[in-house]
């Protein structure tokens, strides 16, 4: 089956720093989403981005489907950005396959 790998697994930042999270996948996909899992466990939709670039405030994402990766950029990080970031994708089925996540901790 398709492999979804995220890097880095852990990231520690000071408030105000920028970061790039990466999602690599092993085959072509129909759909790719980024989620933020907050400390209460809720999965928050960040981006639906099967290809191209999108921006939402301090966050932006780029998917290069032909090269099988997606990047999530967080600028001017805040303590509320802490949590786990997952990419998830559809591969010829309806189910989403989740990556292993990047755990982000932002300190004041």
């Amino acid at each position, binding site marked *: 089956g398709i492999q979804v790998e995220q890097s880095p697994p852990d990231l520690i930042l000071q408030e105000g720093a920028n970061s790039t999270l990466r999602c690599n996948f092993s085959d072509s996909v129909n759909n790719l989403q980024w*989620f933020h899992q907050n400390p209460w466990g809720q999965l928050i939709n960040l981006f639906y981005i099967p290809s191209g670039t999108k921006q939402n405030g301090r966050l932006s994402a780029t998917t290069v489907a032909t090269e099988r990766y997606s990047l999530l950029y967080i600028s001017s990080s805040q303590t509320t950005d802490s949590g786990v970031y997952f990419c998830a994708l559809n591969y010829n089925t309806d189910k989403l396959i989740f990556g292993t996540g990047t755990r982000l901790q932002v300190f004041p």
Partner: protein
Amino acid sequence: EPEVTQTPSHQVTQMGQEVILRCVPISNHLYFYWYRQILGQKVEFLVSFYNNEISEKSEIFDDQFSVERPDGSNFTLKIRSTKLEDSAMYFCASSDLTGQTEAFFGQGTRLTVV
């Protein structure tokens, strides 16, 4: 903004008991899903449901699990005889027509089996 809602937010149950987790998907969505996340691990697919039947299920979704859409708004996951290893966060999700467009997740039900 439309959202997926799940109840209860927390459930504690004794081993061997039956539990029903409830979800109200987004109203115009036609595809419904259950996922689970064991503490500290990644989110895993359990089952997808479309047109009143299961369209896909994982190997985790064995005979102790069942899903139902009892009316026009609710979508439920039943675990018939809970085991300790069923302790996890369970997420309901829904998506619109094609099933391969953006999926929206509920806030989760944390199930603890003691």
